[in-house]
């Protein structure tokens, strides 16, 4: 199918809900997703779970199967295994499925690519043996793979506690959980506690993970700073500083995590307007209450529009679909607003815990601008902090200048890993807000595209038109 009313990108909670709602409202809906089955990162392999798996992963995981079932029954078209390599402001999508590329035209597009782990650029972070906590969780969910040696977990955020519990349940030895959340943050965050408690389940889940980690006897070290990976050719030890001085824990597998940030390459490629979120230290697309962006045909739903969590994502997906149906003339704005009421109430419930989490787990400012000159910022092109500082000294005033001078962000990941750091380094050097520095100019292919697939592109022009 090369034309549709509504194209939804991503089959996580936001995408599944948006596609389900879009089809229910009578829109010819197509959901495109990179994975082979619905669920996204959070509910990966949601349809393949056996009853015992919920004991390992947690009961909240059942919601993924419910969403997937509703989506399967909705009548929306579904193309798994599809990578998006182009998003045009006019609703054109470049899709790669298997080895075949084609262009699709959608009257409205909802981008729901979710979140990615924030890169944790500490000395030695590119050594083999270092990985993101979220990446370890992906392996656990997708194929039940767990490390067969003791692991160290370090960082900040709910996922560090959750992965510690999940791995411990699976029998993995956890040498230590190093918590980088500063103690004074915890005190300040308590101010948000009364409101957060109204969220009930959300907060209790997190407290449950902390309690479980402690009761399992996991060694927990708080007030950790100055993390650095040591090792020759591969990770051998994680060193760090606490109130009692410098310390080190030997490990060959270490899981780092400093929260997640929106995946913005699709909205950047479409040229939606983006803003810098100073609380979360990340870029996000500017959206209205329906997820509509600065572009007429493009909306964003879920964590890709700002980190809100899985339950909120589901609601935001439905709201974006309602707005799509209204814009495409399927329902009136009155009906849209009326139908949205319970969704808005649910959203308020799901987001009461955010101010607490944002305050508590706000990444340290220094995380994006490491002091150590040898720290690699762009791992694709091995560009270090020193290289970036040189580029700034040479006159790089924005992210694109720095990219051209250093090759930073030119590798296969297209700057996904180094984008926030590059903007922050330049901003600090020039003493301007990060927003003034701007982020990458992203053009297609948003994901690497085989030349042979482009050569055989369906929907392309056979000859270049004369201008």
């Amino acid at each position: 199918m090369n034309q549709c009313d509504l194209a939804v990108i991503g089959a996580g909670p936001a995408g599944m809900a948006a596609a389900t709602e879009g089809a229910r409202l009578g829109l010819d809906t197509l959901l495109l997703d990179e994975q082979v089955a619905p669920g996204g990162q959070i509910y990966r392999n949601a349809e393949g779970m056996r009853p015992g798996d919920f004991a390992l992963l947690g009961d909240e995981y059942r919601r993924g199967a419910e969403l997937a079932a509703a989506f399967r029954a909705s009548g929306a078209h579904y193309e798994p295994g599809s990578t998006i390599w182009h998003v045009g402001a006019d609703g054109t999508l470049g899709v790669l499925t298997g080895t075949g590329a084609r262009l699709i035209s959608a009257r409205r597009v909802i981008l729901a690519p979710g979140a990615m782990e924030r890169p944790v650029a500490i000395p030695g972070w590119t050594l083999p043996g270092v990985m993101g906590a979220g990446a370890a969780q992906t392996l656990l969910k997708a194929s039940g793979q767990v490390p067969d040696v003791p692991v160290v977990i370090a960082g900040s955020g709910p996922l560090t506690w959750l992965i510690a519990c999940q791995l411990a349940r699976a029998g993995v030895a956890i040498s230590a959980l190093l918590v980088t959340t500063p103690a004074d943050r915890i005190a300040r965050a308590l101010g948000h506690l009364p409101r957060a408690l109204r969220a009930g389940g959300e907060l209790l889940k997190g407290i449950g993970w902390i309690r479980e980690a402690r009761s399992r006897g996991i060694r927990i070290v708080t007030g950790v700073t100055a993390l650095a990976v040591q090792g020759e050719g591969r990770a051998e030890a994680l060193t760090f500083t606490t109130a009692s001085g410098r310390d080190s824990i030997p490990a060959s597998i270490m899981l780092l995590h400093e929260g997640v940030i929106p995946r913005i390459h699709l909205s950047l490629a479409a040229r939606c307007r983006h803003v810098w979120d100073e609380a979360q230290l990340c870029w996000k697309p500017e959206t209205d209450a329906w997820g509509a962006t600065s572009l007429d045909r493009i909306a964003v739903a879920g964590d890709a529009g700002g980190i809100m969590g899985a339950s909120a994502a589901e609601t935001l997906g439905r709201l974006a679909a309602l707005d799509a149906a209204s814009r495409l003339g399927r329902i009136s704005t009155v009906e849209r607003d009326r139908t949205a009421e319970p969704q808005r109430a649910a959203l308020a419930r799901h987001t009461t815990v955010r101010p607490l989490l944002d305050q508590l787990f706000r990444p340290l400012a220094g995380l994006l601008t490491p002091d150590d000159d040898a720290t690699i910022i762009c791992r694709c092109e091995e560009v270090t902090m020193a290289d970036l500082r040189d580029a700034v000294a040479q006159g790089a005033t924005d992210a694109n200048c720095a990219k051209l001078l250093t090759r930073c962000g030119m590798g296969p990941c297209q700057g996904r890993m180094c984008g926030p750091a590059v903007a922050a380094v330049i901003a600090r050097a020039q003493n301007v807000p990060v927003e003034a520095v701007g982020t990458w100019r992203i053009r297609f292919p948003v994901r690497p595209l085989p030349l042979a697939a482009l050569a055989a592109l369906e929907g392309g022009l056979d000859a270049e038109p004369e201008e």
Partner: protein
Amino acid sequence: MTRAIVIGGGLHGMSTAIHLRHKGVPTVLLEKNVTGQHASGVNAGGVRRLRRHPAEIPLAVAALERWMNLPSLLGRHAALCGFVAGVGQIAIAENDADLRWIEQRAAEVRTLGWTHEEVIDRAELRRLVPALAEHCIAGLISRQDGHAVPYLTSQAFRLRALELGVELHEQARVVGLDRTADGWRVIASRGAFEADLVVNCGGAWAWQVAEMIGEHLPRTYFAPSMMVTARMPRFLEPVVLGIGRKLSFKQSETGTVVIGGGINGTPDLDGDRADPRPERLPISARTVCDLFPIMRRAVIVRTWAGLEACMPDEIPVIGPSIVAPGLFHAFGFSGHGFALSPVVGALLAELIAEGRSSLSLEAFRADRFNSTGQA
């Protein structure tokens, strides 16, 4: 003392400013974005004499000599350009029509008194480009030609200009151009500047500068697009050009393969940006896969497009304004100005300081177009 304002911080503007400083002329350089942001920094980087318009051959030959002696132009920044000489540029004949074309072309260039373009047979072609597809039958080569890294070259020009005392203002967009009693007043978004003469190196926007004093020059511009692959094992030394099909093809020092050749993207003059069009690039991808079977395994990681003025006869305007003394133009390089930048700035500086240039600029006169800016 004579003072100059150069409008446009691309390679030609920076080269002109550098050469004016060599002659002791105080020079202000105004750039509306940042130096090298447009065509200068994002082109294919070819340093080519091959297949030049006959009028451009003397410039291209003189330019290569200057590329071979970059330190005299750029001092300690010369190495930054990543200039590689002598790998050759080769236009590939895929069929008999192409072959007849290259034979005619080589004869024409010889008649003009030049010897750098040479027809090579299939065996020599295969020796130089072993990865080429079997069906290719001959080539037209210029053996001393090479390539450089455009953005880093722009950066080297910038650093050299600053070192020589050029007064550079970036984010300074020219919005007005007025004659004064004895010279010019240039009004920019970052203040007004006065000088005895003005050089317009505004690239795709140069016609707008000319319009400010009522001079009508061609308004044509385009956005040639480029693609680059992930790093590949080394398989190609020379730069390869198409004859019957649009192609410019080379493997960079890092192993990435850079594919260009003039497939047009969407130019956005007011937005200061250009974007490639995905629906137009399959034809380029097919050309590459046909000519280089190894490229069927290649993966495209980035594409981009640059904004560039394109004259109706595809050669630049270089020389004095038609309507106003003390104003000079150098723009409209039509997608092949990168290699010429070291020499064009030098010729303009000669023209300005001494009243004549050491190479003829007759063919590039602004008055070759009619009053509405048509050729």
